[in-house]
């Protein structure tokens, strides 16, 4: 279908107001990429990618509905845009047809706060840190703290089923969501009812949470809150290997402990910046040591009991207590990880990304070793962290980076690294895309089981979105 651009421009201006519509290069360039490393790497040596034809900033669900009806009528792709921090190309351009970006950030208000039930009703375009600060000012917290807290939006979190660094205690963002308002591709506005539990059919909100904008645009949500903690405490243990560290964490969760933070990583004392100048180079034994970092929060009595249980379990598995300092230090720098990839991305012969895979405890330690070994065999550097621990399993976050002879070779090595990660992951019974979603990138690397599941999503999408406008090409959809 040919696209009558000026006619569409007129209709979009009517939908959102001319001041909330732009085709200026200033705005289209700013929406031409998200934070998918592959697309960023390509832009280093090639041209800056083409942006959308139109950017709209609707102020309410009704305006979103109007835009989607226009898009459906002309079969124009629509990309909902939150903070653009997607690392999987979820908000990046694709295809040849001119497309519309719906930037959600005008919808950024807290609509209501029920302090008795501890529920907030908030619009989806609010940036995470702004929401948290507003809640903190009233003595509450959401308890959802991803590393991209300062840049990502609530709508982006919900659409990708985001997991924050406090997920062992508070769960994923979907676990905090009690109800949604969303606009379906045909312009229908749906509100899912907010009630503690209900048994009348599947939960519609959970069809939209994690759908990455393929089924509609989330415009607002009711979220569960927590009171700001009265007490917080940190603890750390060092283990000779990763396996006993995982054992201590797994057994602690099984014993009913709900730590605020629980992560296993390399011994931070080996960091170059933290070592004495004349300290000897780390030995292989130093390098295989892993540290379990923990934080607890809540009433003092509860925190003390949880800490005691973990301490006993960790000590029984050979863990050496390092006290509060390493975990407290990590907490102080908890957002620093977000800055680490950029210096690698600005050099066009380097490649870098972050593999995040999930597995049950049974499979996790094997996967950890295999992934580390496979990458190091190729001379690529890795840093693997065990995070988002739950009763049944956890996630491995594997930052990797390497060097190639040229920009093209760097892209090839990047793709090879991902194919390798997918092979190791599938062979070891893990699942890719555990944290950042599927987007354009991970969806192509998923195992058959995941692909089958997404084929069902494609069927649902065909019904809800016959014109195929909503974020096509994401999560394996057409």
């Amino acid at each position, binding site marked *: 279908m040919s696209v009558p651009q000026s006619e569409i421009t007129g209709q979009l201006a009517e939908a959102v107001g001319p001041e909330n519509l732009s085709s200026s290069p200033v705005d289209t360039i700013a929406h031409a990429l998200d934070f998918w490393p592959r697309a960023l790497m390509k832009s280093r040596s090639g041209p800056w990618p083409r942006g959308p034809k139109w950017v709209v900033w609707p102020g309410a669900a009704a305006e979103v509905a109007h835009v989607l009806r226009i898009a459906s009528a002309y079969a124009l792709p629509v990309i909902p845009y939150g903070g653009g921090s997607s690392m999987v190309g979820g908000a990046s351009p694709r295809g040849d047809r001119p497309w519309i970006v719906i930037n959600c950030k005008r919808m950024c208000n807290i609509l209501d706060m029920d302090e008795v039930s501890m529920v907030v009703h908030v619009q989806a*375009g609010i940036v995470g840190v702004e929401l948290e600060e507003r809640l903190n000012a009233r003595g509450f917290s959401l308890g959802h703290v991803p590393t991209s807290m300062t840049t990502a939006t609530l709508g982006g979190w919900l659409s990708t089923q985001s997991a924050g660094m406090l997920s062992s205690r508070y769960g994923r963002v979907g676990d905090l969501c009690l109800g949604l308002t969303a606009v379906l591709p045909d312009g229908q506005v749906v509100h899912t009812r907010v009630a503690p539990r209900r048994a009348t059919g599947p939960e519609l909100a959970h069809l939209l949470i994690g759908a990455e904008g393929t089924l509609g645009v989330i415009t607002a949500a009711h979220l569960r809150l927590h009171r700001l903690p009265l007490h917080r405490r940190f603890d750390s243990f060092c283990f000779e290997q990763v396996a006993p560290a995982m054992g201590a964490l797994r057994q602690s969760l099984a014993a009913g402990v709900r730590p605020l933070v629980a992560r296993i990583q390399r011994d931070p004392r080996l960091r170059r910046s933290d070592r004495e100048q004349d300290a000897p180079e780390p030995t292989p034994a130093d390098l295989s040591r892993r540290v379990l970092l923990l934080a607890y929060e809540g009433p003092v009595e509860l925190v003390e009991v949880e800490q005691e249980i973990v301490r006993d379990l960790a000590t029984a598995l050979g863990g050496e207590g390092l006290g509060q300092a390493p975990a407290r230090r990590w907490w102080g720098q908890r957002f620093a990880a977000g800055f680490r990839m950029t210096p690698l991305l600005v050099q066009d012969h380097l490649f870098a990304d972050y593999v995040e895979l999930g597995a049950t405890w049974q499979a996790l330690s094997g996967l950890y070793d295999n992934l580390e070994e496979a990458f190091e065999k190729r001379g690529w550097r890795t840093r693997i962290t065990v995070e988002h621990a739950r009763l049944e399993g956890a996630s491995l976050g594997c930052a990797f980076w390497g060097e190639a002879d040229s920009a093209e070779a760097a892209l090839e090595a990047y793709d090879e690294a991902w194919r390798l990660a997918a092979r190791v992951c599938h062979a070891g019974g893990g699942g890719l895309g555990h944290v950042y979603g599927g987007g354009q990138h991970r969806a192509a690397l998923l195992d058959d089981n995941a692909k089958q599941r997404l084929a069902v999503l494609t069927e649902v999408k065909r019904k809800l979105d016959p014109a195929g406008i909503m974020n096509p090409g994401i999560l394996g959809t057409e």
Partner: protein
Amino acid sequence: MSFDEYEKALELCTYCPKLCRHTCPVGNAERRESVIPQAKMAMANLVRKGQVELTPETASVFYHCNGCGLCGEYCEHDVDVTPALFAARAEAVNKGMDPPSMKQFTDRFYARNDSLLHELHHTIEERFFVEEAQVAYFPSCDTIEHSPRVLHDTLKVLESVGVDYVALHDGEYVCAGYPFWAAGLMSELSFLAKEIASKLSNYKKIICDCPACVWMMRFLYPQLGAPISAEVLHVVEFMDNYAPRIQVSSTVPEAFYHDPCYLGRWLGVFDAPRRLMGRAVREIHEFTWNRERGYCCGGGGLVADNLPDVSAKIAQRRLEEVMRTDVPMVVSACATCERNLSQESGNVEVVNLMTLLARQL
């Protein structure tokens, strides 16, 4: 510095996941992706690399910056966005691609200077303009235009603590040239800096009521080949030595202190104004975003002139926290902050620190 010298900073921002988005007063007010720090720097970088054409339209994003420096405070790469974006403005000016709002800027600057100079002599008694003095008081344009009583109050406070060797600088200019820097008019700025430096170097000490003037004279003038041999201080830094001589009256029960960006983040002066304020105010309330993280009033970077609605929204956001309380006063130490905040402050009084101190005399 030329535009290309910011290559490293511009590249880092282009490939940054927009981590300082939340700090930017302009980005927060406009809610547009194109005016968050990352996008403004990326646009400058794409223009620098020739990947995007420099036009008045693409250059316009460089002007959506207050020059507050808050983004850099959050940045772990130590990127300093303000000078890079001001260099991008200079590039646009040099190529004749600056946005229409910048036209005839130099003429407007000098016309305003002359009228404020006239106003200054009209407002202040001639006895305060002494040529031979150890310390020269360099009054700033925004103070003369929007808060002329601060001039009287500053002189009154100085007198009250026994400092009678300060004279008002009787020069041709009432601005150290920040607007030229922010407009990207670097040759005009160089000329002005050299003129002012040559006159002010006769004194031992210069005091200014405008934090941006102090920063310019102390740090930018030497880079422009116009160093000032005299010590340049903000009036608050100067008065801090005399704080014990100010009677503690605590007539004001409570007030917020707003850190001006240039006095706080840029010059690192945080405690002196609080110490002085403590002579008059019983309880000093802190903003959540304070000291190094102080949030801008919206008055800098020519945003108040070019984008008045945006500037007003920034001031509203700064005052939101005050409005949630019953605290009736906000104190600052910069006429630009005073002007910008008071336009949006409703019943809350925004007071210059010197006025606050003068009131108790």
